[in-house]
């Protein structure tokens, strides 16, 4: 496991270096295209842009993301069962500290992890997800998110996203400048310059135009491999690959259903802003039938095809025990590709025995209600347990003096 992370860091570092070079190149050519000799200034500007954006996401990224998705915190007191599941999985994954737990009131089932490192991490879950999954399935989804934290994907994907974003921004600004006539002025002043500069201009133009595309594809490809690795981590932490397979199946079915229903498209949209999609358990707003394997792997998708992820986990679940190596093997059988993102050293690590999965376990509705009640208490609601067994929940906006009768037995509160 440690080897897995270590080797991953080297690969990740290489990718970050490559992206930086691309950013520098785009910056240089953007500078040159705007004015002869402007290259170095362009580089400085590009790096400063990236540095600024990265600093912003380092210090405030998780807060911005959680605020944008209207996530609110729960703790061991307000939602003990949910927090307990997160703590169990953190221990199984060997995290030094369990992540903070946030709940989002949304009828889109999803979950994501955010933060900068395992000590400053957060897991957020929508209440629809809690309504849908059994306890074992919920454990698996949380273990997947904890996998992202353990593998340090939360920081790495943020970094790549910021780099791809900076490149896209530079390229976009430059394209607009040319579109509005900036390029024509530039070409008149350089009409007497040599052919070399013309080639430079052409190369620069291509770098700037395609740099953004390449950066985005690199980012998305990295995101997809990270999903497989988080799945593998979840399977090992829970020793229950079928639970994650079943959870993914439910999420896929729900999203496909939601987006095929007319007029409900707005509801099927993502619970988080587009920039954070790589962090989700499943990519949002799956098109109907997108779960079928016949579909193309989707170069522009943050997540691998759901059917492929499920099939890999099912194969693992059929074995009496499994290791990371078995996950890589199943990946190869299902996708037909080599699991090159799995460092070979990790593959030799010990196997865990497969736990049996109870597919008939009902959804953990009690856990969801507890979490939602926790949110409500946090938001100033008053909860009253009527002796008849009904529970009345009064929002903060209702004035405290108002007499409220239990709709079931007629008893007046307090």
């Amino acid at each position, binding site marked *: 496991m440690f080897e897995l992370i270590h080797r991953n860091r080297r690969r990740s570092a290489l990718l970050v270096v490559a992206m930086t070079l691309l950013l520098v190149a785009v910056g240089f050519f953007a500078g040159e295209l705007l004015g002869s000799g402007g290259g170095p200034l362009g580089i400085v500007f590009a790096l400063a842009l990236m540095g600024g954006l990265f600093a912003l996401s380092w210090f405030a990224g998780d807060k911005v993301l959680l605020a944008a998705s209207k996530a609110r915190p729960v703790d061991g007191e307000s939602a003990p069962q949910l927090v307990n599941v997160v703590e169990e999985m953190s221990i199984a994954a060997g995290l030094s500290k369990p992540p903070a737990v946030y709940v989002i009131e949304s009828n889109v089932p999803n979950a994501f992890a955010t933060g900068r490192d395992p000590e400053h991490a957060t897991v957020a879950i929508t209440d629809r997800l809690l309504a849908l999954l059994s306890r074992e399935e919920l454990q698996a989804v949380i273990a997947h998110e904890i996998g992202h934290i353990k593998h340090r994907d939360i920081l790495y994907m943020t970094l790549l996203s910021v780099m791809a974003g900076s490149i896209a921004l530079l390229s976009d600004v430059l394209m607009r400048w040319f579109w509005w006539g900036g390029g024509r002025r530039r070409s008149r002043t350089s009409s007497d310059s040599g052919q070399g500069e013309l080639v430079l201009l052409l190369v620069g133009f291509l770098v700037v135009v395609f740099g953004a595309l390449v950066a985005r594809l690199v980012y998305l490809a990295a995101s997809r491999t990270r999903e497989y690795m988080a799945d593998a981590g979840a399977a090992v932490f829970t020793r229950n690959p079928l639970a994650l397979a079943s959870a993914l199946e439910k999420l896929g079915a729900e999203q496909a259903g939601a987006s095929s229903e007319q007029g409900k498209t707005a509801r099927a949209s993502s619970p988080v802003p587009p920039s954070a999609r790589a962090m989700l358990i499943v990519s949002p707003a799956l098109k109907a039938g997108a779960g079928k394997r016949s579909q193309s792997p989707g170069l522009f998708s943050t997540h691998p095809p759901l059917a492929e992820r499920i099939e890999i986990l099912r194969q693992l679940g059929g074995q009496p025990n499994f290791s990371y190596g078995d996950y890589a093997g199943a990946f190869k059988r299902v996708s037909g590709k080599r699991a090159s993102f799995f460092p070979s050293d990790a593959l030799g690590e010990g196997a865990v025995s497969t736990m049996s999965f109870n597919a008939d376990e009902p959804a953990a509705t009690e856990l969801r209600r507890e979490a939602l009640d926790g949110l409500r208490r946090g938001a100033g609601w008053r909860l009253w347990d009527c002796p008849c067994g009904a529970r009345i929940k009064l929002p903060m906006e*209702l004035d405290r003096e108002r007499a409220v009768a239990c709709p079931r037995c007629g008893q007046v509160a307090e």
Partner: protein
Amino acid sequence: MRCPACKLALATLEVEGVELDFCVEGHGYWLDEGELEVLLGAEETVLEVGELGGGNGGKGPGGRRPRCPRCKRSMTPVVLFEGLELDLCPVGDGIWFDEGELAVLMTELVRAGRVVADTPLARSLDSLTRHFGGTS
């Protein structure tokens, strides 16, 4: 969420593991899509809540139509049977029952033999409609 009739914040009632939104003042119920079926323990759809078109722009006979507490679109009146006109969200978010209307629906469903008879939830629903419907 706010009451479509009096704009007061809706309170939530949890009985037998099911949550309903209700108005503490006007005693109306808001049922999200599918909640009626959960409440009745019905396997199939009791009341189709779906695409109904854009309503009537908020105006009509009897003044402004109440608005859906979820999406704020003006709700579409649907006459279910003689004596019961419910307000349905035009995009299918749910159904608004004014005071007593849930009881009328229950009575009619029982008459038509469509409700699962003796579950804890059905008994709750019976007392729910007694206290909020008819009697007051």
